């Protein structure tokens, strides 16, 4: 199951030469804002290690995260994930199925108890004892608790496992929750994104193999090396934002000139991710470069934060009906207040002009 060969040996067998791996590690170090001297250090440290066992559990997810990672053809930083770890259980790509697969999972957890990395994608539904998502008759929540017991750390891949994601969107009919809402006693790394950038996973694994611990995390549990800056801060269209050049519609002159998409709903200023620098598909592009504003998909509850196409500067002030109703209430209260004031006025006037009370005759 877990290779007894070192990672370096396995890489050589896969046709990834020492120099290619050194090149990968140099690139990773650069992406993670580590000094360039760390490239060779990482390469050397990782090549000497044995691959850790990784168990990948898919819960209430769309499989987009798995797709994002497995779609590369040539050896790239993304596919390097599979060389760095011994992926002992991954339902989408493993050959075994049914009882055989269940046996594989049980054996992997037993053999590597306390040492395996648990990767989770998808949220965990809780309602009806988790009946809305079961694998082989076992609910996700039960599977998660069982698998977490022997895990060295849990890596939540995608916004669903990190924060609940789309299943958790209002009204959350399955009572979907993130992994961190259930497991409290294991280190958890959140790698959100819908889907997340695959090389971030590679980076976290490389860090773990080099240093033996998890990278520094921000308050939402995301590796600071990749989620430390907002899209806005590194966006190549930032000069247009600063100059006040905005696209007003998706096909106007501004859009064709590549101007800022703030007015078309881009959530870049409040979204932390590495899309603007690392990009997608080996640095090909990212949503804004392709002409669409950022959805904010690596932030919690991004699906419930209002339209993707209304600018960040707008807010939910209501609508014409609520304002109209409020106006009606206000006018009614004002009229009532004025009426009460007039009535009081009348009373004073009446009291002032009333004849004085009859005095008692003193005879």
């Amino acid at each position, binding site marked *: 199951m877990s290779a007894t060969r070192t990672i370096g040996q396995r890489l050589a067998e896969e046709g*990834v*030469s*020492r*120099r*290619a791996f*050194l*090149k*990968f590690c*140099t*690139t990773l*170090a*650069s992406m993670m*804002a580590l*000094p*360039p*001297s760390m490239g*060779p250090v990482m390469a050397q440290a990782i090549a000497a290690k044995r691959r850790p066992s990784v168990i990948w559990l898919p819960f209430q997810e769309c499989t987009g995260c798995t797709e994002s990672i497995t779609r590369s053809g*040539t*050896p*790239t*930083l993304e596919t390097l994930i599979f060389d760095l770890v011994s992926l002992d259980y991954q339902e989408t790509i493993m050959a075994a199925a049914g009882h055989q697969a269940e046996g594989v999972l049980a054996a992997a957890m037993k053999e590597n108890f306390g040492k395996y990395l648990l990767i989770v994608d998808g949220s965990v539904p809780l309602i009806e004892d988790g009946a809305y998502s079961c694998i082989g008759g076992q609910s996700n929540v039960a599977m998660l608790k069982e698998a977490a017991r022997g895990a060295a750390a849990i890596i939540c891949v995608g916004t669903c496992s990190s924060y609940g994601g789309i299943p958790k969107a209002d009204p959350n009919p399955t009572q979907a929750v993130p992994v961190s809402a259930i497991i409290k006693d294991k280190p958890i790394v959140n790698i959100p994104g819908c889907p997340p950038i695959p090389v971030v996973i590679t980076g976290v694994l490389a860090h773990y193999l080099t240093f033996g611990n998890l990278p520094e995390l921000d308050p939402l549990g995301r590796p600071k090396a990749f989620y430390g800056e907002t899209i806005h801060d590194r966006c*190549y269209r930032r*000069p*247009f934002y600063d*100059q006040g050049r905005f696209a007003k519609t998706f*096909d106007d002159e501004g859009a*064709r*000139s*590549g*101007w800022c998409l703030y007015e078309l709903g881009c959530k870049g200023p409040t979204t932390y991710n590495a899309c603007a620098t690392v990009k997608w598909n*080996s*640095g*090909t592009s990212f949503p804004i470069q392709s002409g669409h504003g950022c959805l904010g998909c690596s932030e919690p509850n991004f699906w419930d934060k209002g339209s993707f196409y209304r600018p960040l500067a707008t807010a939910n002030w209501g609508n014409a009906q609520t304002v109209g109703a409020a106006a009606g209430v206000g006018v009614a209260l004002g009229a009532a207040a004025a009426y009460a004031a007039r009535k009081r006025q009348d009373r004073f006037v009446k009291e002032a002009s009333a004849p004085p009370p009859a005095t008692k005759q003193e005879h």
Partner: protein
Amino acid sequence: MGGVGAIPVRIDQALTSGLTGNGRPVLAELAALAERLAVTGASGAIDLQALPLSPADLEWLRETLGRGEVSTTIEAAGPSSIEETGFAGVWWITHRNASGQIVAELIEVATVPEIVAATRDEVGASAARLAAIVGESVPSGKETRA
């Protein structure tokens, strides 16, 4: 209506280029690294992607550092070019992936960049393989006489 390809798309490059002056401090850092290499033998590197350098800044650095005698290409998961600048020991390294996109760009200060040199282990493995080839092709002790 014409196809999607008929819609003209222009990216206004003018706003995103221009010298920022951030190239000069890089030279200062290279000087310090070179001094350290000369005195202690310790090599070092500067990650160009980690610095706020515009395309014009990179051009300026390239021109200022110039070209040396050595130019190397490594084919490993895509092409990487290692070029000695006009300053001995200062190497400009550009790593590209299999699609030709730049994945890393750095300036390394070393006698020979780390990625170029072979390791002792690798050389040991080569010796064994060479010996195996030599062992195969050597004829048996008898010499044939015409």
